[in-house]
């Protein structure tokens, strides 16, 4: 126990039960605290109120098309690697009601959805996930266009980050330069050890919340344990993606026969795009009522793998799975950079784990590279 006040940039040791007080303070402050929960054999992000809601003792094993959880019985809450859900569901919800058009005495009127946007506190954001949020910031908050739903939710966001200590087989954040340890962009950042959380302070809001808790200055032993854990986590990531000249490589590979090969396996099911924490495509649809006098307009997640995505009166731009997969991969790793200055991939591995067909971009890129070299 110490009388010292935490400061931005400093690190303290927090007994695990203290997290409950932090969550309670956030909730009292009007935040909806969302974090990982074990549900239906996977980890999902949902409302959590206390430490007890977290997936204590759960570790995960991932490989292409497979995600399995095991209970270790250990008193640790963040030993798993996230499941198919990502935080984008809160900042860019899968369904958003935009407005209702109403016909009154022959003329259309519009009732905008003026619902106040919720204020979220994300509990347990991984470094790759924070990188993904920063990528979506570039997508949804451009100088020339800002998505009002995203902007409001992002502005109110509190981020409690967590450093990854148990990466899985599909992780390749080290190649993308995003993890497994956090660098910046959080309010508070935890490194979990058996007995305590090591907490780094990243913002004034984080500092003031932490100041209300009972904490200790971290011992050199604890600090070394944390550093070792992060180092060994980074070392344990063996999957790699060579990003050298990648945007150019993909643009030079547009006519490669490899796309047709992938097209034979790809289900065009859209799962990779929906689990991707950076994919941002959406569609707007009308839900009219039978009288024809009102129509609710809704924004929903869409995917470049959907047939209708590139539909035109003159014919579909990408009628084959081959061309749709090519669109996804070239966008993600090449043209995304033209559009937003960075690639659209953070190396979280979700698209590999959750592809029912085990299609693995870290296998496809070397194959394309080998072809170009020939």
């Amino acid at each position: 126990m110490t009388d010292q006040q935490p400061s931005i940039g400093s690190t303290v040791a927090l007994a695990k039960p203290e997290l409950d007080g932090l969550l309670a303070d956030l909730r009292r402050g009007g935040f909806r605290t969302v974090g990982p929960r074990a549900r239906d054999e996977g980890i999902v992000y949902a409302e959590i109120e206390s430490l007890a809601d977290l997936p204590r003792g759960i570790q995960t094993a991932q490989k292409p098309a497979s995600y399995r959880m095991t209970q270790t019985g250990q008193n640790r809450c963040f030993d798993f690697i996230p499941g198919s859900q990502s935080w984008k569901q809160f900042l860019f919800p899968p369904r958003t009601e935009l407005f209702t058009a109403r016909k009154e005495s022959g003329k259309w009127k519009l009732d905008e959805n003026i619902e106040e946007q919720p204020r979220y506190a994300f509990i347990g954001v991984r470094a790759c996930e924070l990188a993904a949020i920063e990528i979506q910031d570039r997508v949804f908050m451009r100088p020339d266009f800002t998505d009002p739903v995203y902007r409001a939710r992002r502005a109110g966001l509190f981020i409690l980050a967590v450093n990854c200590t148990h990466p899985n087989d599909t992780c390749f954040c080290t190649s993308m330069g995003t993890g497994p340890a956090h660098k910046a962009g959080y309010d508070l950042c935890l490194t979990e050890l058996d007995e305590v959380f090591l907490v780094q302070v990243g913002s004034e809001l984080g500092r003031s919340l932490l100041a209300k808790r009972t904490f200790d200055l971290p011992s050199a032993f604890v600090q070394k344990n944390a550093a070792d854990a992060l180092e060994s986590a980074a070392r344990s990531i063996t999957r790699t993606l060579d990003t050298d000249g990648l945007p150019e490589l993909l643009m030079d590979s547009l006519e490669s026969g490899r796309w047709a090969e992938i097209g034979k396996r790809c289900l065009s099911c859209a799962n990779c795009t929906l689990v991707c924490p950076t994919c941002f495509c959406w569609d707007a649809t009308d839900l009219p009522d039978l009288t024809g006098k009102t129509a609710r307009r809704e924004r929903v997640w869409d995917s470049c793998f959907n047939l209708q995505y590139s539909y035109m009166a003159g014919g579909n731009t990408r009628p084959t799975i081959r061309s749709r997969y090519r669109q996804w991969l070239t966008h993600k790793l090449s043209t995304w950079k033209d559009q937003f200055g960075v690639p659209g991939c953070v190396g979280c591995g979700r698209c590999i784990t959750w592809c029912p067909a085990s299609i693995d971009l870290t296998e496809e890129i070397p194959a394309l590279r080998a072809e170009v070299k020939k």
Partner: protein
Amino acid sequence: MAAAPKPKVAVYKFSSCDGCQLSILNLEDELLDLAGAVDIAYFLEATRTEKPGPYDVGIVEGSVSTPHEAERIKQIRENVRILVSLGTCATAGGIQALRNFVKASDLAEQVYAHPEFLHYLDTSTPLSEHVAVDLEVWGCPVSKKTVVEVLTALVQGRRPNFPPSPVCLECKRNGTVCVAVAQGIPCMGPVVHGGCGAICPANGRGCYGCFGPSGAANITSLVNINQSLERFAGESALLIRNFSGYAPAFRKAADEAARLARKEEAK
């Protein structure tokens, strides 16, 4: 827009469980609007009043599985301007089309004491094998949302909006954990037309394809995947040969899966 006369609608039942007609009756919140928007001229499950045809819209539930039905669908076609096949029976033959893959008379003998009193066709077939169909609506049963969209579109004189996207899209929008990836349960979701709300995976089971093949379905690839997930031999083939098994895309894939299974057995 000038008030157009209300379209006259007739609802018919063929070989089916009545579930799709019930989906219309289950509209509850919309029933009053429906009554205001269309003239229900013939709908025996709902009302005894029968107004004579011709009708603007004929909605048919059920498949053609008796000689009588084969005749009746032709008469209906002549009596309606727009013919809608409602549900998987009318659109692909339904679960009763399982008999199309075996000898129907064998089944009849096993089930009935006096099969000679039965009048049936050897196959259960979609309406489209008998007459021209203007709109095919999938589902076993059709979902409420689908029914509302069909009826609204018919009233507004436009094509209904049924995006040909797979069940996976709805599953992920719902935040459901993939049963195939997290539990190794064979699932048809990647190749099946959405519209159901992905309720099966949300309840911990694989999609069994009652909404028929999706627009972009790569069924061959899914068959390979599901074979690797089989919990008993032949499970993946049975999964395709299910509620929508007689749909051409599934039929072809099931034959292929059965062929592969036989090859496996021979090893």
